[in-house]
């Protein structure tokens, strides 16, 4: 009875995953496609939880569904309106049809070959007798790792080198984002209801991030999930029309972005100086060192994800979006402020409504 119910659940999960993926690929409307992709991510998180991988499920829900969805929606918003709906011309009427067919067949053959290699590798992995040798090695050495959650032990101790390089990839991504130039000016203030939600949601998100970071030592959680939750607070603040969205300014921001890699290197090199291998923590100190690195990594990951959502170098709050010179700053600041924070008079409200409409129409 119980296994039958679980089988029904599994079949439902697989079916909805496949149909959501097909629908997300098939639709021509980019916004609809992104929303279907977010639904796909949520169902995929449930599937990971069903596969007894709660760490991956948390990361998938926070990063795969939540933040990637927000990033893609922001990208759709930045696109010109005409390019994203079905009224663009199909590709084959603009390009050479023969080239397109050749390209399609080449890509299809390449994908089929790749899938065949992956399937072969999977069967080889299943056939080999020592399939859980790695898991046994992890649980045998778990006591010396400083944490009791095997996933955190692998990520931050046994394979810490991999995580260091992952953080370096994120740092490189931030450099790419900075190269895009100044970020677009934010969204307009969304009104009292969303403001009220923000006021309690952001502290709760910060608290949840701290909890996920702390609990990662002995249960599902850790720096990546905590960083994604913290970044969600920044996304909410930007959507609510806040200018600085919780990011520090100037050099502090640079320090925060580099904090993950820097803390890893400081710990690793200090251990090297003390005569231990690079990132080979002494078991007595391992827990504290891992927590130290995870704190820095969480801040760096959160800042990276918020910057990705921002899509450019953040502007200091003293520079207004119109790009006026400092001399003209006070007047234009006043004017833009009256445009942005309408509260007292009806005329201001009507104007802001119109501006809000225009903005929404544009996206």
């Amino acid at each position: 009875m119980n296994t039958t119910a679980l089988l029904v659940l599994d079949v439902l999960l697989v079916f909805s995953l496949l149909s959501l993926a097909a629908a997300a690929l098939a639709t021509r409307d980019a916004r609809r496609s992104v929303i279907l992709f977010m639904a796909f991510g949520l169902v995929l998180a449930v599937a990971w939880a069903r596969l007894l991988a709660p760490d991956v499920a948390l990361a998938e829900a926070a990063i795969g569904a939540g933040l990637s969805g927000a990033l893609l929606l922001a990208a759709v918003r930045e696109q010109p309106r005409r390019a994203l709906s079905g009224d663009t011309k199909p590709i084959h009427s603009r390009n050479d049809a023969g080239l397109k067919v050749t390209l399609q067949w080449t890509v299809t053959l390449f994908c089929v070959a790749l899938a065949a290699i992956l399937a072969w590798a999977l069967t080889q992995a299943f056939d080999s007798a020592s399939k859980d040798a790695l898991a046994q090695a992890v649980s045998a050495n778990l006591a010396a790792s400083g944490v009791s959650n095997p996933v955190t032990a692998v990520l931050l101790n046994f394979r810490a080198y991999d995580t260091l390089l992952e953080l370096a990839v994120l740092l490189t991504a931030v450099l790419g984002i900075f190269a895009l130039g100044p970020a677009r000016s934010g969204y307009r203030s969304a009104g009292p209801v969303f403001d009220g939600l923000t006021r309690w949601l952001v502290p709760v998100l910060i608290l949840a991030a701290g909890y996920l970071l702390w609990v990662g030592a002995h249960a599902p959680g850790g720096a990546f999930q905590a960083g994604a939750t913290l970044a969600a607070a920044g996304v909410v603040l930007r959507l609510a029309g806040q200018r600085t969205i919780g990011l520090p300014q100037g050099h502090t921001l640079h320090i925060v972005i580099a904090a993950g890699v820097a803390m890893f290197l400081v710990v690793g090199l200090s251990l090297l100086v003390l005569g231990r291998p690079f990132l080979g923590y002494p078991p007595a100190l391992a827990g504290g060192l891992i927590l130290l690195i995870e704190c820095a990594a969480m801040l760096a990951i959160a800042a990276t994800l918020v910057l990705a959502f921002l899509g450019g170098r953040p502007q200091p709050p003293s520079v207004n979006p119109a790009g006026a010179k400092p001399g003209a700053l006070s007047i234009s600041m006043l004017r833009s402020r009256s445009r942005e924070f309408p509260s007292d008079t009806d005329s201001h409200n009507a104007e802001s409504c119109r501006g809000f409409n225009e903005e929404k129409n544009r996206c």
Partner: protein
Amino acid sequence: MIDAMASLLIVSGLGFYLAGSIGLLRLPDLYSRLHALTKADNLGLGLLTAGLALHAQDLLIALKLVLIWLAVLAASAASAHLIAQHARRQETPS
């Protein structure tokens, strides 16, 4: 006794989900669809969490379930408001 109560709560919560889904698919315009979705989902999830909380092993898990319900309640109410506000502003260009 507790099992029967929990089952009753969960099944009635599922009924609300069913009604909300049918409303989302069948109702004519955005506002009534939102109405069906948010009202039914809020109450449905409330009944569902109440039923699951009766089954919970300790008080802490029950408390967490109630917290999840409260967070979803606030988020869904606010997002329904935002969607409706946006739709209304697009309808009547001032």
